[in-house]
């Protein structure tokens, strides 16, 4: 298992008259990890949300494995996908949100097995075993029966990551996974991402944690104003940025 490649070709995205993505080209080879950095409002969250079609795009194309997303919808082998196929397409793309978005009315176990049993038709026993196994790997074996409201932010985010991993996704998308966390809880979540979530998968991570991005990313993309300003190996972008805007952003955040 090494994930599926993701390729963005000149992607345009508008909210009404506001153009949020203005011709984005990003290539994420199979199994690679790309970190997207940039100031708020630069369009980086919107970019990852377009990859699993939470946001439709208005121009260009996104290739996710054998699926193509363009302004007219989703396509496989020249066939336009309906709502059911779009749901199946999303089932193999894990997504981790800034606000965790756990289901508050379900226990941790309920959160984890809901989609595997309901969407993938995995037998319940198998799903439970998998959930318990993964919870142990993120150091939360005792929280099986807890409700999300009884967990800290860091614990909730670790459960949310496991929830995505339960589907055995080929691609993982992270939308600022640690931005809502207290500083002392960030480390535990980053560790789970690095050690577990991105292993053997194609990953796109929107983050403000530059040290983390340097450690885990194969490439770093710096975005500003809806455009890719600079991209390259972490050391190149972070230590020897070519563009003035990249330099000033990195200078401000350090």
């Amino acid at each position, binding site marked *: 298992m090494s994930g599926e490649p993701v390729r963005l070709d000149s992607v345009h995205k508008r909210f009404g008259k506001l153009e949020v993505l203005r011709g984005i080209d990003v290539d994420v080879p199979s199994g690679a990890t790309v970190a997207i950095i940039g100031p708020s409002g630069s369009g980086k969250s919107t970019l990852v949300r377009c990859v*699993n079609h*939470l946001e439709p795009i208005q121009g260009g194309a996104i290739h996710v494995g054998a699926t193509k997303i363009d302004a007219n919808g989703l396509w496989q082998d020249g066939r336009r996908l309906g*709502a*059911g196929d779009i*749901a*199946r*397409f*999303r*089932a*193999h*793309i*894990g*997504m981790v*949100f800034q*606000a965790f*978005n*756990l*289901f*508050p*009315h379900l226990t941790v176990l309920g959160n984890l097995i*809901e*989609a595997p049993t*309901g*969407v*993938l038709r995995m037998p319940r026993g198998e799903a439970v075993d998998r959930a318990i196994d993964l919870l142990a790997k993120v150091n939360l074996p005792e929280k099986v029966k*807890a*409700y*999300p*409201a*009884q967990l800290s932010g860091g614990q909730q985010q670790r459960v*949310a990551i496991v*929830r*995505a991993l339960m*589907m055995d996704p080929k691609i993982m*998308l992270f939308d600022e996974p640690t931005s809502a966390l207290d500083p002392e809880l960030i480390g535990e979540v980053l560790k789970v991402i690095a050690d577990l979530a991105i292993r053997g998968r194609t990953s796109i991570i929107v983050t403000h944690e530059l040290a983390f991005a340097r450690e885990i990313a194969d490439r770093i993309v710096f975005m500003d104003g809806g455009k890719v300003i600079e991209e390259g190996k972490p050391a190149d972008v972070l230590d020897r940025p070519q563009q003035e805007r990249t330099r000033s952003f990195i200078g401000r955040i350090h």
Partner: protein
Amino acid sequence: MSPERLGRLFWEYSDIFVHGLWITVQLSFLAMFFAMALGMLGCFGSLSRSRILRSPAILFVEFCRNTPILVQLVWVHFAWPEIVGIKFSAYTSAVIALALQSSGYLAEEFRAGIESIDRGQVEASQSLGMTYLRLMARIVVPQAVIRMIPGILNQFVTCFKSTSIVSIIAVPDLMYQANLVASATFLPMPVYTFIALIYFAMVLSISAGVRQVTKLLPNFGYFQHRRTE
């Protein structure tokens, strides 16, 4: 008038009062039952992305909410026979009118409950591959229903009180029976005072019940201090 005479009077007519109260309770439950069904249709219609579903649903909901119950009652009972061509018994007309009135409010209650669920819940469900129907059934509606329950119960109280209006089309509810007894005995003051107290006691106990039920709702780990009290 002596208390004994009053006691004898109410004893003598107790069958009539009990029967009236029974009709009132029946009307409330039947009307709420149909109102919930209609309210759900109105709610999902007004949330629909299709205009063909949405526009009539919104019109229906607004009509139900923005016409007085008395007008709805006489409209259903006296106008529908000419419009629809079917004549309903007073009892059926009463149930329909009360259900219409409550369904408008319930539809809004349902819609507000569903819209109060954070957008992130929908996005998380979608990102896990759930279809719209599945995520509504498994994630959004279960959370929304819990928020709706207090509103539904309050609407039940309102509906219970509204039933007194049906006496004007001669449905033999508690109010209607009181009118009969009052004119038969020429004692409006004690009779109307008595049934006012009955309505008051009924509504008070329903409301108290509502508060208890609201406390019993699952809280999913929030407000844990309440459980340890």
